[in-house]
């Protein structure tokens, strides 16, 4: 576990849910016995994306909203790597929503962790695409607060074609296990991680989540491979919020459909002395 840390202390606020996710991340990693040299963590921009600073794998902290295309490039360049993308709800569901839908459609073997605090933390408290209706933020003042329908990440991921979809919370003792399952899953796996922001979101607190979440595994004969059931459960949000692995199915990954990659990983190919005479012949 020490190997995954570096000497810097996180600058997250005391009590922030990011700490819980950070710890679960390391636990999941250890439990799978993954090699940090063979892992690339790709984050966006936001408090949550700073996690890249505090883990000692290969990491690239990208631009706001762009973690998934960067992760796609990393994965295709070296599909032997374990690639994990990570960031906030604003990052992923705001600027990044288009990339999110398309990456899910593609089903590359990438794990995507979304720290969903339903607010913009790093820019100090604006509304997010996942903010609940009526919530008052810097950019959605009273009396009406937020009037836009929030994005349900689990539902959106399912519809877009993600082959593994889960939800958890930053304080969930099961989070590490779910992350490990997501990493093991071959294909695009999404975890919506409900994460309290103690500084700017005074509505969706640890307590608020605790009072509402329930594990889908408690439902009688819940089958996460059943897409229809999963979509019904995924639609729930409010008094009852489902958590755990909501959907998991096997689908061909994007990279396994590429014959070029079956021959050799791109990043280890020799590029000395490539012969292009046949290309010239084609044009003669």
């Amino acid at each position, binding site marked *: 576990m020490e190997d995954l840390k570096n000497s810097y202390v996180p600058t997250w606020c005391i009590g922030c849910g990011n700490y819980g996710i950070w710890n679960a991340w390391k636990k999941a990693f250890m439990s799978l016995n993954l090699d940090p040299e063979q892992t690339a963590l790709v984050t966006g921009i936001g408090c949550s994306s700073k996690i890249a600073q505090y883990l000692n794998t*290969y990491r690239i902290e990208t631009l706001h909203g762009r973690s998934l*295309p960067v992760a796609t490039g990393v994965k*295709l*360049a070296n599909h032997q790597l374990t690639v994990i993308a990570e960031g906030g709800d604003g990052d992923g569901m705001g600027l990044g929503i288009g990339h999110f839908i398309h990456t899910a459609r593609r089903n590359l073997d990438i794990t995507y962790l979304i720290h969903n605090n339903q607010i913009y933390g790093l820019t100090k408290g604006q509304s997010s695409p996942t903010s609940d209706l009526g919530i008052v933020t810097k950019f959605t003042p009273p009396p009406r607060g937020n009037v836009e329908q929030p994005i349900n990440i689990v539902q959106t991921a399912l519809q877009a074609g993600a082959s593994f979809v889960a939800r958890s919370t930053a304080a969930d003792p099961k989070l590490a296990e779910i992350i490990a399952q997501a990493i093991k899953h071959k294909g695009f796996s999404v975890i919506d991680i409900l994460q309290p922001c103690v500084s700017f979101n005074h509505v969706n607190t640890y307590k608020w989540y605790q009072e509402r979440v329930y594990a889908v595994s408690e439902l009688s004969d819940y089958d996460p491979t059943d897409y229809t059931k999963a979509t019904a459960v995924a639609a729930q949000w409010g008094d009852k919020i489902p958590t755990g692995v909501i959907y998991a199915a096997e689908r061909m990954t994007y990279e396994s459909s590429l014959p070029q990659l079956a021959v050799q990983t791109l990043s280890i190919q020799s590029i000395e002395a490539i012969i292009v005479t046949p290309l*010239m012949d084609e044009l003669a």
Partner: protein
Amino acid sequence: MWRKPFTVMFGGQAGYGIMSAGALVAKAGARNGLWAFVVNEYPSLIKGGLNTCIVSFDANPVKAYEERLDFLCALSQEALDQNYNKLDRGAAVLYDSDAVKPDRDKVPQAVTLYPVKLIGSLSGETAKVMANSAMLGAFCALSGFPIEKIADIMKTGFIKAKVLQQNLTLLYQTFDQTRSLFAEEKTFPLSFQADGNRKMLLNGNDAIAMGAIKAGVKFAAGYPMTPGSSVLTYLADHAVEYGLVFKQAEDEIAAVNMLIGAGFAGVRALGSTSGGGFALMTEALGFAAQAEVPLVIVNAQRGGPSTGLPTRTAQADLNFVVHASQGEFPRIVMAPGDVEECFFETFQLFNLVEKFQVPGIILTDKYLADSSIVHPYFEDGDLRVDRGALVDESWLNDNQPYLRYRAAEDGVSPRAIPGQMKGRHIATSYTHGEDGFYSSGNREYAAQEPEITAAGLDKLFAKVPGILQEIQGVKLHGPQAAELTIIGWGSSKGAILEAITAVNQTGRTVNFLQVLYLSPFPAEAVQAVLQGSKRTLLIEGNKTGQLGAMIRTYTGLSMEEVYLKYDSRPFTPALIIEKIKEVLL
């Protein structure tokens, strides 16, 4: 004085195989000792509208296109109506007698009209697919271009034997029919002799893609935008064969970020787009620079501003690409002037972006991207891949702790890639220190922020002298000393070269300073030439003289004469000769 090449225009509605007819005759010429230059002009329409293909033939390499026609083949009324004024003395006009009615008053003197039934003799879809074979048969009959050379090329071009047979039959039928109508003219002035030199017919985008493959590009991503797309199509077509991956992205923002991911993971990556797509890539361009991830992006310019003219040319994105993205950082901008430079400089640029860990941009335009030229095989035997400071695991083992952004005199730090032992690091878009950490993520860094910020920028800019040393920033063409020095960049090169060759044959002396690398700007090299120049003439395909302004900024020198063309069409030798005469008068 300068004699222009024998120039044929094929014109007709989109879908009638106008461009493939042009490519076919050019290839037939190329295999038999001739040189050619092929320019396609087409509106941004899928159906209808006038498509033209101009093929200029010569016994020597042709460097530019010219619009004075010796032969016009018109399959549609527009093809004739819009081109009366381009017909040279003695020109022949072959037209489809069913579809085209010439206006005798507009036909210039000493031009002969040849009405022949072309599409009319065919029915429905066949007309579309085979109209160009009929046209070529008649063209051969009237011009004396050897029909069997065209038949030879056709034989290698069709996959289905039956379709080939139909086309060949039509080719010869129309040939015979035209012969029976008109006396043999044999106006085609060149002789056909295979000379043993291997030649190809390719455009700028083909050459860039081929140069990139030679350089070992393994990943490409993009979103279609004319005229940048065909680089990507080429790579997609050859992906499996060359073990590379092309990914069509959801937009240009995704595309460039995929390139950054691939570059970070140690793979040579290429994107291609046009101005609008490049605009979307700009935030990530700065990210690549800040994280020191190498990548190459092609911006094939088209007319603008905004969506502008999808299928027409311009040189108006120069200011934009050299300044694109927030903040300040070095990037390499290379503007090839011909297919030779498209191939070799693209190869070179891949070496440079890895050696200096900076983003690289290839700035072309529709005219260069899309015009084909008969060109000898590239002599690529001496090209060597240089991956710069990309380290291996044994180096990493010996150099612990590893600092990805270690301070270095030349600004270049050893680069490790994911998967390597002991190379773990963070790359980030934030201003960072030697180990990749930054102030808002670490309290220790916050205290030293001013020093780290300045040192970070100094490190990026420390690369500039090294880059300037490695690039051939300018090329001086023509005599060392001249009465007039032309300055230009990019695709106008060919027309300028043809023009100065012609003028110099008359006893006047003109040379041409081509600026091949526009960023970092080769100020000293430009200054050295311009200070010795007697008179200067700036030639650019834009409204505001963007290179002129850069020269002023970097050298304090102003161009005396300026010839700017921003009407969406390329420069031609004749236009430049006229301008030179005016200046030298």
